[in-house]
């Protein structure tokens, strides 16, 4: 602004004043959201809960502010307060709560409605829940257009297709006629973004927009959000995953227990985190660390306990290792299912691999690649149509359940959703105790038997780093991380040779995920248990596995030594997957 100089001012006074006026208006308009000292409180049975305690933030046009934190940190509540959806019982207070110069405090419901969808768009995590199952995607996207009267009735359809296309949905004319359940997760999420964009919002709030998605789809969604930001939309991104945030955010705020513990320029926060909590979050991202390093600082004690446990169990394992035969060999198994349209869907197609004693094989692939079907065949829960599974030198598939049952204790499972794998009525003591089976103290109901069984369950809980106090808890009363630890304790109770882990950490926060991954590494190192580790997350796979198999469309497209697959991928698909991993924080 050279016109500010006194010499130029007399020459073009009117224009200069106009320019300056426009300039200040621009600067004012640039700030979309201004929040100062936001407090959100929920009244509860045992006193009220302060979900957000004094948060201040601004979002400017064309800028992305990311709020990062674990579940329960208050990040979603903060974002929802900006659209008046913090909850019926929430009390929201703030010194300043402004959007585009409008004071949001005490806005009536009808004023809110005029704001939502029109000037502020909201994209939630689970598109299947957020989209009306009875309406087509096109109708869903048309609704904000209609409600806010943005386009004439005759132009609605054209605008809807345009929006779907903008959101990166191929063949929008066909997709607009489909219902949410007919679309894949990635397409649904894009449809949700399209409906959020229909009103042409100045601010887009995206709450964990990619958490349920595969890496390649995630990369596309993040690309779409990035484009919107570059076109001038303000973006408020909420996520628990620093690697996702780092791709998009201009500024990052790290939230913990309702306050921002650190906030600032994205590059600054990621490269030189000032707060210990931010450092812990960064340390927990497996993609950033070499295999064998610990991701969490907390569960180191479990290694010692596991070592003692292994010693007490004797050297049976060492003898088995000497035999040299593979523990598990999967030979050209195939499985197909009836698809809803009457055809067949080949879930697994001629998959072969072997697993040695104590080895960790990582299987990576996107949803629908056949990973879980393969895992179920290894677990003996699904019979292969062709091929066979051999476990410990004995046929494992194609035999009756009666023959399989005595061997079952040697292959155990840890599932993605441990809650579903626990009987909801049973306390932890029974859940783990049941896996101990009929030992010397077996099924005896006597007080002595129960006491020694409880002692063994407590020992197992100790192995996985859980306190004895959890013995009497029911599954619903446990946190996600605790549940997964209980699942691991139950798997260990039978003294297995192989544990099949199907997406064991994908439902967990990064820091909890780090603890569970460390625990699994300890279990393998100290007990010599082989792992078949299934995940869609390449970073996790890389961290855990000795060898890696990449699955796509029911086939293994590449298999090899873990580091080799990651550093020198041979298959084109593997390269595509690797390119999609968020690798933003390389500066660390």
């Amino acid at each position, binding site marked *: 602004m050279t016109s500010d100089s006194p010499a130029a001012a007399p020459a073009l006074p009117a224009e200069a004043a106009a320019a300056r006026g426009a300039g200040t208006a621009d600067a004012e308009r640039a700030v979309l959201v201004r929040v100062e000292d936001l407090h959100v*409180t929920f009244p509860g*049975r045992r006193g009220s809960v302060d979900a957000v305690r004094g948060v201040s933030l601004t979002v400017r046009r064309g800028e992305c502010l990311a709020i990062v934190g674990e579940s329960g940190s208050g990040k979603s509540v903060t974002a929802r307060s900006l659209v008046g959806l913090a909850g019926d*019982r929430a009390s929201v207070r703030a010194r300043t709560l402004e959007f585009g110069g409008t004071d949001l405090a005490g806005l009536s419901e009808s004023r809110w409605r005029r704001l939502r969808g029109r000037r502020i768009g909201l994209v939630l995590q689970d598109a299947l829940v957020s989209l009306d199952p009875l309406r087509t995607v096109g109708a869903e996207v048309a609704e904000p257009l209609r409600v806010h009267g943005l386009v004439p009735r005759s132009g609605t359809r054209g605008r809807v297709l345009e929006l779907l296309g903008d959101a990166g949905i191929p063949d929008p004319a066909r997709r607009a006629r489909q219902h949410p359940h007919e679309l894949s997760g990635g397409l649904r999420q894009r449809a949700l973004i399209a409906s959020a964009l229909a009103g042409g919002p100045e601010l887009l709030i995206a709450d964990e927009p990619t958490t349920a998605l595969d890496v390649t789809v995630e990369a596309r969604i993040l690309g779409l959000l990035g484009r919107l930001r570059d076109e001038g939309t303000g973006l408020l991104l909420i996520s628990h995953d620093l690697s996702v945030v780092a791709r998009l955010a201009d500024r990052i705020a790290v939230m913990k227990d309702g306050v921002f513990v650190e906030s600032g320029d994205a590059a600054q926060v990621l490269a030189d985190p000032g707060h210990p909590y931010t450092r812990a979050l960064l340390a927990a991202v497996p993609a950033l660390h070499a295999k064998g390093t610990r991701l969490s600082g907390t569960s180191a004690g479990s290694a010692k306990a596991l070592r003692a446990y292994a010693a007490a169990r004797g050297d049976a394992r060492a003898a088995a290792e000497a035999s040299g035969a593979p523990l598990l060999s999967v030979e050209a198994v195939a499985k197909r299912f009836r698809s809803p349209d009457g055809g067949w869907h080949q879930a697994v197609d001629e998959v072969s691999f072997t697993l040695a004693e104590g080895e960790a094989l990582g299987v990576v692939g996107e949803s629908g690649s056949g990973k879980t079907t393969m895992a179920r065949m290894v677990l003996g829960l699904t019979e292969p149509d062709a091929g066979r599974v051999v476990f410990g030198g004995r046929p494992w598939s194609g035999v009756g359940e009666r023959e399989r049952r005595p061997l079952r204790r040697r292959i155990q499972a840890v599932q993605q959703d441990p809650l579903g794998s626990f*009987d909801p009525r049973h306390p932890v003591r029974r859940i783990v105790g049941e896996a101990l089976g009929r030992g010397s103290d077996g099924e005896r109901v006597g007080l002595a038997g129960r006491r020694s069984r409880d002692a063994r369950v407590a020992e197992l809980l100790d192995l996985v780093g859980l306190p004895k106090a959890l013995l009497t808890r029911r599954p619903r009363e446990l946190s996600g991380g605790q549940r997964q630890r209980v699942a691991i304790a139950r798997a260990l109770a039978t003294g297995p040779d192989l544990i099949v882990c199907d997406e064991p950490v994908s439902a967990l926060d990064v820091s909890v995920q780090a603890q569970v991954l460390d625990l699994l590494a300890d279990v393998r190192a100290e007990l010599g248990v082989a792992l078949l580790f299934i995940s869609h997350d390449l970073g996790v796979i890389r961290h855990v596995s000795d060898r890696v198999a990449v699955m796509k469309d029911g086939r293994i497209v590449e298999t090899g030594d873990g580091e080799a697959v990651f550093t020198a991928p041979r298959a084109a698909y593997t390269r595509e997957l690797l390119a999609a991993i968020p690798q933003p924080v390389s500066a660390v």
Partner: protein
Amino acid sequence: MAVTALRVPGRSWRLPRPSTALAAVLLVLLLACVLFPGAVAGASPTETDPVNALQGPSAAHWFGTDQLGRDTFARVVHGARPSLLIGLGATAIAVAAGAVVGLAAALGGRVVDAVLMRTADVLMSLPELLLALFIVTVAGQGTVNVMVAVAIAAVPAYARLVRAETMVVRGSGYVEAATVLGLPRFTVVLRHVLPNAVGPLLVLGTVGFGTALINASGLSFLGLGAQPPSPEWGAMLSEGRNFLDTAWWIAVFPGAALTLAVVTVNILGSRARHRLSGRTAR
């Protein structure tokens, strides 16, 4: 803040709703009548007193007297036991049989499932009361026969529920987890499937108790169940209807008792269902 604190005081959530509280009080009253009818009503339910026949409600006879001079209040109180026990017995039989049939249909394979469920379809196509009436007519009248007939008529509904629940539980993660642990099938069914599938059945049973009560009384009203002079509510209604224009109290009070009993059980049953559905994972 202060306002919210006032609105949600620490203890208020523990107070039950008025309807629930009222139902609970009525339940206690009913139970007292069932267990200690003599203590609740001093008079004898069967002692006739022709001199005082057909008297309206008064201090001496709260609910009046019937055509034989019997105290209606005493008969209503003493009638609680036979009336409620028939309903209770019928429901217990129906729930137990329904659980067995439902489990068998869900776990017994395709043929067993088809046979049991098509039979259930046929039975369900008939109104419950009509079906019970038919069974009593064939089997002969009497309290026990009415109880069994009402139970049989109710079984298909319970069996269907248990079958559906069992199928859900059978496909659940924890049954799979038990399989992976190598537990025998019978143990899995007994320890995991049965207890989890039967929970909702008990709730439906509370609500079904009301229906069973009405059906049993209906059969007694038709003269197929409890026989005079037994003070069963349905039978009392039947006797009282001839005097509706001259002595309304003979029919109205047992009718009111029946209605209150059904409403009480239904309210408590639906409260139980809400409590239970709030707790289960689904």
